[in-house]
């Protein structure tokens, strides 16, 4: 059964046609890597899936329910779609623990004790249990990003969207974040990630989607598509990143 479905999605910023009829079907448990040049519409695609951006034509459903940007919809969506950003976006005035507990307590109305138990478990999962009482600015970028992952996981999302979540990190910190993602993938969480990490896409991903000029240009099994690209555009792109 499909968890995320996009049907002929068109998105414009004013006159600028950014998504030109996207069809995409993602099943539960898939790890989908979206690759493509800057400006090809990767972030926009993710932001349409979780209702952060409005789209003009077509339809998107998550878990069978239609996605719109109506505020209430975004909030309901938040329960099934988690998102991690390039810049972590942890709340600086809250401890790590408070960051993770915030949404479960005020959105899911969990008790503080229950939220804390979940928060500790999620932080354990990303290997940061001991940072519960630290403030974000005292952590390295890699640690902050892992907290952001724990924060999203605490809402038990059905699908996790990641937009270049290792791009702002120093090279030596990328690995620890990818390791967490790999672990999540093994546990069967559905991941949709915009990434430049081709090794990760190849070794962990179940599918690669190559976007070009606002379209899904080519997609398929990572090993096949990355070692044997069919279109000139993907060949060119592969040449540029390698």
């Amino acid at each position, binding site marked *: 059964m499909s968890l995320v479905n996009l049907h002929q999605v068109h998105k414009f910023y004013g006159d600028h046609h950014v998504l030109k009829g996207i069809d995409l079907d993602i099943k539960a448990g898939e790890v989908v890597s979206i690759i493509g040049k800057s400006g090809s519409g990767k972030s926009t695609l993710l932001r349409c899936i*979780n209702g952060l951006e409005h789209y003009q034509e077509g339809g998107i459903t998550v878990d069978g329910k239609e996605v719109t940007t109506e505020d209430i919809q975004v*909030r309901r969506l938040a329960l099934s779609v*988690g998102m991690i950003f390039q*810049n972590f976006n942890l709340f600086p005035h809250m*401890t790590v623990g408070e960051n993770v507990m915030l949404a479960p307590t005020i*959105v899911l109305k969990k008790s503080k004790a229950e939220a804390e138990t979940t928060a500790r478990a999620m932080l354990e999962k990303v290997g940061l249990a001991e940072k519960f009482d630290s403030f974000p600015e005292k952590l390295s970028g890699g640690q902050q990003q892992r907290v952001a992952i724990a924060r999203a996981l605490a809402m038990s999302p059905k699908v996790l969207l990641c937009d270049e979540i290792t791009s702002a990190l120093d090279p030596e910190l990328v690995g620890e974040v990818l390791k967490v993602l790999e672990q999540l993938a093994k546990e069967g969480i559905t991941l949709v990630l915009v990434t430049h990490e081709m090794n990760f896409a190849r070794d962990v991903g179940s599918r690669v989607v190559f976007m070009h000029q606002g379209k899904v240009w080519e997609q398929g099994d990572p090993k096949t598509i990355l070692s044997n690209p069919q279109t000139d555009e993907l060949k060119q792109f592969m040449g540029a990143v390698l």
Partner: protein
Amino acid sequence: MLYFSDLLQYSDVFLSGLKTTVELTVLTTILGVALGTACATIRQYGNRASQRVVSVYVELIRNTPFIVQLFFIFFGLPAIGMMLSPWEASMIALTINLGAYSTEIIRAGLASISKGQIEAAKVLGLNFRQTLTRVIFVPAFEKIYPALTSQCIIVMLGSAVISQISVQDLTYAANLVQSRNFRAFESYLVTALMYLGLSILLRFAFNALGKRLFAYRTAD
């Protein structure tokens, strides 16, 4: 010769004036900052029409003298049936004045919060009110805290003007005393020192509050 001892018999007058000034300052600081917070939120996140209304208010207040605002409220409003006591008129005038100046200051704080913070709250399912109170306000106020507290002190000092409509504040006390004993030098010097003391006290209070509110900055 200076005769500070001549002031002693008027110490009750000074103390009661001081009390009035302190009371008005505390009240108008709280109300004014609350008003400024509400207006800044509208200015930053509201719809076009409500933004326009706030802009008109802010510009109106920031481009007219405080004493004229005060006189308008106290002497002008009765013409349309609003009779206010001097104390009430002063309270309203000071609140409106601080509200306008703090709107601009607080708005700068709100503007400093990145779109990413707001989106992070949104994708976690927080509604806008929760986002404001839980995610935006603390870091926003931290950014502009020194400017905001300075403005509160400026308004406290500016409140001296309300003695003009016979509110028996600290300045009123000074006027009264020097008109009785003709010790203008001593009266105003003592009064100035009392205002200075108040300013210093307020700064201490604001700093202590700031340390608590923004504890995360100094935490280890």
